[in-house]
């Protein structure tokens, strides 16, 4: 395990950039104090080092994780990068180093602090992705379906596959408001679809027909509840309120 140092890495925020930080730490045999984004506004008392993103190096690092530790661990690191864990880069770095030390067994060390923290973050990511999949609502915008998301984690990469498969006959767009990231799928296109980045996105006003279906859904939603069993607490427990803002049934 590298010694702790008084140095702070800064990188461009991409996954490849992060892997280059890992390479730097391993090469220098030193553990940074923190890993921050290049445009981090807060100054630091510690000396800064900007880490350059080199795709070739990133691929090398990823391959070394797959071979020296295991493909599952590489997967965990990839997904870990999508989480909103505090100090995620540092925690992932510690996890990778643990992996180099213990090999593929590291996954089973669920009571180890580092592994446990990552497990919890991944569970949060998995659950949020599942909720996003369930509670996402499309609206017909004249030729394509559009949906908005406001997740805490970067769930978009984990859910697009499901919709590409299910809605392969449709053109659709999903936009993550919190992270300024979106995905577009065109039916019949050779490519599965593509991601894009945008600060904000404005959708056209819903058509009359779209309004009609939204009303029908609201009517169904209101009617299906059994009056003698109204239970707001149970509903909130199963369907956290922060998802409601993007759901048709709660837009009145």
């Amino acid at each position: 395990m590298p010694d702790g140092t008084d140095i702070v890495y800064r990188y461009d925020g991409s996954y490849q950039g992060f892997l280059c930080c890992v390479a730097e730490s391993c090469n220098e045999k030193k553990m940074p104090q923190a890993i921050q984004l290049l445009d981090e506004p807060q100054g630091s008392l510690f000396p800064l080092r900007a880490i350059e993103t080199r795709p070739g190096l990133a691929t090398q690092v990823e391959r070394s994780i797959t071979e020296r530790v295991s493909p599952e661990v590489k997967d965990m690191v990839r997904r870990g990068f999508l989480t909103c864990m505090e100090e995620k880069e540092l925690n992932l770095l510690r996890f990778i180093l643990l992996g180099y030390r213990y090999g593929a067994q590291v996954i089973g060390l669920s009571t180890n602090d580092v592994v446990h923290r990552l497990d919890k973050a991944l569970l949060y990511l998995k659950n949020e992705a599942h909720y996003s999949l369930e509670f996402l609502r499309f609206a017909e915008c004249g030729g394509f379906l559009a949906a908005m998301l406001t997740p805490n984690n970067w769930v978009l990469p984990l859910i697009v596959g499901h919709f590409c498969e299910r809605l392969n006959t449709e053109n659709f767009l999903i936009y993550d408001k919190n992270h300024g990231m979106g995905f577009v799928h065109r039916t019949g296109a050779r490519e599965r679809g593509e991601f894009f980045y945008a600060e904000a996105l404005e959708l056209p006003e819903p058509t009359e027909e779209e309004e009609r279906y939204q009303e029908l859904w609201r009517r169904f939603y209101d009617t299906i509840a059994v009056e003698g069993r109204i239970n707001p607490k149970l509903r909130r427990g199963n369907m956290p309120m922060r998802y409601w803002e993007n759901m048709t049934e709660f837009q009145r």
Partner: protein
Amino acid sequence: MDIFEKLEILTDAAKYDVACTSSGVDRPGVKGKLGSAAKAGICHSFAADGRCISLLKVLMSNDCAFDCTYCVNRRSNECSRASFTPQELCELTMEFYRRNYIEGLFLSSAVVRNPDYTCELMLRALKMLREDRGFWGYVHVKAIPGANPRLTEQLGMYADRMSVNIELPSQQSLKLLAPQKSKEKILAPMTQIRDGIRQNSKEIVKYKAAPRFVPAGQSTQMIIGATPESDRQILALTEGLYKIYSLKRVFFSAYMPVVEDRALPALTTPPPLLREHRLYQADWLLRFYGFTAGEILDEKNPDFNPFLDPKCNWAVNHLEQFPVEVNTAPYEMLLRVPGIGVKSAKRIRSARRQCRLDFDGLKKLGVVLKRARFFILCGGKSISPLPMDNPAVIAGAISERSPAQRDLDTPEQLSLFGPQKEASVKSLTKGEVPGIEGDGFLSP
């Protein structure tokens, strides 16, 4: 009548059928068709009563020729009658589906004219949905008791899950409240579906592209609290249904008094929600925890304990089996510890291969130590704050509700047949339950 009104009437009429899942089959999407299915099921929303909404749950028609006493659609009840056309049903299903409101369609129906005619109406709609519109999502269809087996078979070819409602937990009750749906008429399609699924599995082994018959399996539902069967009888029936008909799920629906009749509990009877909750807990124990119905309830204890869930209740009454050492106990015994669920037990099993577990580690793995601490040892040590010789003391410590707390909850009668004395509360139906050898009901 416009589609809004029809939707409201036919949703309102279908909502007492509590089968709510879209689970059981993994069906990847197919290019050119709209839809796919996920084995674990997907819950798209939750209604104001807290229940999952995953399918468009409607009746084809609520114009019923039968007269089952407890049902809001019964022939002799005054209410608006409506029917969907196949086009309307397809339109609703497809448009809701592509907006990600639903996983698919749940189609039931009142008996229009006769069972065969009803099946034909449903078949027309499903055929249009699957073949003309190319719908590849989930379809759950109800079999109609009394219909020609050939029609039931055809329905099964368009559906993922098929179910027939047992309705009531005993033959006598059925005869009393739904005389037109006899036990034979209900069990015949259940047998047919079971055999059809078995036959289909063999065909698929031989010929991979054989058309699928009810790939997500069969389920059923019974109404709890309209009739005087004990919890033990209901649980034994449930166990039998799983064994004999290979059902995927048995659903329990707390009786909601919507109709007035001499044979039914009064309109003011509150629905037995706690009892329904206990039954679902017991159902989980049967399916995932390796319990048998006889272990959960027996002749001496025919009804559930309102203060303890069935697993805790069993543990407290079998203290001789505890404490178990988490580092060495077999998986089956870990499952029996209150506070350790299936996920925690699996995590314990895999974590203990790598290292010795302590209480701190157990907490990280998600074990509810507040309950489990009375029943486990970790490396020979215990952190139980109480001596383990008195079941009543342990029961009090792990109970989720106390008699005082009960009064603060929304009013919930524990007995159908009379007010309870505070001090003697032990079971949910006390004393005055008449035998089921049909002498009718005690009015409360």
